[in-house]
């Protein structure tokens, strides 16, 4: 029965992959390192799942696992965005620097 649920999810998945390839192939190679750290930050979206697991309080095990997941996902989010910002702030043109 729940296999029916899969169809719209796969639909979204397919379109998102297509969109991702289109958008990311336009990123120039000089920005590939910030792209990677930035996409690391974005993959911290797993935090959404972690928050649900930790917060709904169904049982101890899922609360502990969820909390651990929150910590690691949050390291990704905060670490990823901040280090990306740090790198991108170094990319300057000569005129801007002076």
């Amino acid at each position, binding site marked *: 029965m729940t296999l029916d649920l899969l169809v719209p999810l796969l639909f979204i*998945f397919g379109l*998102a992959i297509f969109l991702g390839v289109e958008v990311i192939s336009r990123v120039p190679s000089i920005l590939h390192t910030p792209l*990677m750290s930035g996409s690391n930050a974005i993959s911290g979206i797993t935090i959404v799942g972690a928050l649900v*697991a930790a917060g709904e309080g169904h049982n101890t095990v899922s609360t502990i696992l969820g909390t651990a997941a929150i910590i690691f996902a*949050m*390291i990704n989010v*905060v*670490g990823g965005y901040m280090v990306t910002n740090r790198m991108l702030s170094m990319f300057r043109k000569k005129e801007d620097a002076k």
Partner: protein
Amino acid sequence: MKFIAEVFYLIAALLFVTGLKKMSKPETARNGNFLSSFGMLIAIVATLVHYNILDWTYIIGGILAGSVIGLILAKTVKMTEMPQMVALLNGYGGLASLLVGFAEFSRQFYDVTNPDVMHSIDLYTSITIILTVLVGAITFSGSIIAWAKLKEVMTGKPILFKGQQFVNAAILIAAVVGGVMFCINPADSYYIFIALIGIGLILGITSVIPIGGADMPVVISLLNSYSGIAACLAGFVIQNNALIVTGSLVGASGIILTKIMCKAMNRSLANVLFSGFGAVQVKSGSGEKGEVNPVSVEDAYALLEAANSVCIVPGYGLAVAQAQHACRELADLLEKKGTEVRFAIHPVAGRMPGHMNVLLAEANVSYDHLYEMDAVNPIINTVDICLVIGANDVVNPAAREDKSSPIYGMPIINVDYSRTVIVMKRSMATGFAGIENPLFYKSNTRMLFGDAKNVLQGLVAEFKKV
């Protein structure tokens, strides 16, 4: 209420896409990163508001702990250490997905602290959970090995042993069999589930240890993709569109970078993953060597002084010698006297995609001076001097000329087509891949031996004398 949360997830996903789109130009990239982080904030807040959160202590504690660790990592990491940082973040992303899958398993199926209650399980959930856990585990342990290799706490050399392919195949089969058993008969599945986590972790380790240090750019790109796929799978488990969309974006990004890196090394992904390149000591057609023309710093200065256009080709050796600032200073001095200066960056210069660009940007090299290999090669015969600093294999003409060379066919920066090449090098030792470089024996090549930083500072001093 679910409707409102979904709308906010949609807004977050749109912000992520817009953010990535703005990464296409250095001018807008920072703004894009900001938009993307704002999207993340929206997604987190929407989740906290929408779901029936019973206990805030763990959530707040977890968020605070993760933020502080992330903040410290981001503030203290050195730019030369970025590959390790990204490897670590990939691993944490995989681990987070693994934990979410595990937590869902405990929540929906089987709680070890309350073993009498066993919930009914549907096929969809059991398949998605097991895939999330497997991919998450592979990403985590594989990234930790990649991190250890980059950090040089373990050998960068490929670790190979007899029957390795067989062992890997056996582990893979065990994972598939275990996965199927779990899905078919989830009733007594708890131990199978735990065993599968273990198998995933082992698979991550055994698949990364045979890959050499020089191939790490490919591996971290691939693991980057895995971390996205793991997040995407976790989205299938909890049926959350935000996770599916975002995970796919990251998955696509990692795959594109992997492809670019493979192309830049002229190797197939299968070749990188399974061949243990560098383990076999390769000897290329070394017959015709010839004379090298060593020059002094003064001679090199005279050559540079007279040049109208200079193209600097940096390699990771530049970063190892901590010579980025001296290099930028030299470039500034050349520019001041009217010389055209370009930096030509090979895609695999550095330890991860785009690494060299970040290192030069950190040394205040203006980004409009940074050129991709494909932009430089067509005009390289108009360049008076190519200054090769700490790069070797990426300028090796054997890739173009010598069919017996292991790097034959790899795209290189054709520095030997410029009028004069000055190669800055510590000694005549071979590069990362251990391959002879005929460039050093060409008639238009001058060898400038010494530590890159000292030599560059010497050149800067010569320019300042006048």
